[in-house]
């Protein structure tokens, strides 16, 4: 959790675990990339795979949506990585992220989400997702 930025609720829930604190968790990672065969024209890049946490290309250039269980994840921290640099950004109220992809790239969008268990003693669910795209 130090490495990945998640919503504030998760670390608070970990801190609230009774001593001795035992973190029971299930974790999954997802990664996607977009390539263009002959042309980049078309809408198939906007298809969602239905992963619990995923980036989906929006119809506008340089825009992506972060989806949590099929719904936009609003006002959520994400990371944008390129060669030698990693910056932070936040999705808007509709889960959209506008990334500056000027440059050679490649670029990677990354997000992590950790859900506290629904009941005491349950498992935290941690999802990490990335989307790799080219620069312009």
């Amino acid at each position, binding site marked *: *959790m*130090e*490495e*990945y930025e998640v919503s504030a609720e998760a*670390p608070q829930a*970990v801190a609230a675990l009774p*001593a*001795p*604190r*035992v*973190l*029971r*968790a*299930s*974790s*999954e*990672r*997802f*990664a*996607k*990339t*977009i*390539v*263009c*065969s*002959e*042309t*980049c*024209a*078309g809408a*198939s*890049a906007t*298809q969602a*795979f239905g*992963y619990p946490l*995923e980036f989906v*290309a929006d119809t506008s250039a340089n825009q992506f949506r972060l989806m949590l269980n099929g719904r936009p994840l609003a006002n959520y921290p994400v*990371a944008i*990585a*390129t*060669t*030698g640099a*990693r910056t932070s950004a936040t999705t808007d109220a509709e889960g959209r992220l506008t990334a500056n992809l000027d440059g050679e*790239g*490649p670029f*990677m969008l*990354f997000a992590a989400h950790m859900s506290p268990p629904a009941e005491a003693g349950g*498992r*935290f669910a*941690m999802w*990490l997702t*990335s989307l*790799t*795209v*080219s620069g312009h």
Partner: protein
Amino acid sequence: MGLNLRSEVQYTSDMLTDDLNSEAPIAAPIGAAGPTRPLVRDQDAFCPFEGWTSRQLWDFGAFCVAKTWGREPSGGTGSFGLLVGATNGPVHLLHRAANARAGQSELGAIFVKLAFRAAAFAGLVLTAWPSAAMAHDFFLLPGQFRGAGSFEVHATVGAAFPAPETAIGQDRIGELRASEGASIAVAGQSDQPLRLTLTAARPGPHVAGGVAFSPVRLNMKANPSRSSWKNTK
């Protein structure tokens, strides 16, 4: 293209421990492929990062290896990797030595206990530092984003995107997925990334393929003396 990997839970550094000296078996290191396998202290180290592997280093105990640059000899116990974070093995061995010598020489016991504490502190520094500095990401990286028909795509883990750092075994693949109009398959394993081939059946953009693993389940007990979580099965 999608990738879903069985992975680890990152640890936090402000937790407590009550079982540093426990003899209870611990579960597989985080990130280990396949079903959870029982490990015993002095034989394996708890490695909190994806891709780190435990290596027994002669009689000194187990260490976490973050990166290897050579092949280990068949059946050997040495490691040609970068050692980071001496964990269970050395600490536990020193502690056992302290207990053993306590009945022989009080001064010797004190000396060994000091050595034990120094080793524990060293382990703390070595294992805590990378957690704040690096994130190990799973990502897919095409050889080229624009082309025609066939694309080689690397599935890898790395802390310095886009450099691949950790090889992903094919046994960790749970699912490959391609969007409509494309297909994806494993092409082979190289030293670093897992190579995939995406084949586009028609022109256009493709969000094609993915690798999926079943969720791994971990129980992590906080361990403040080494700023780590220990897998407790």
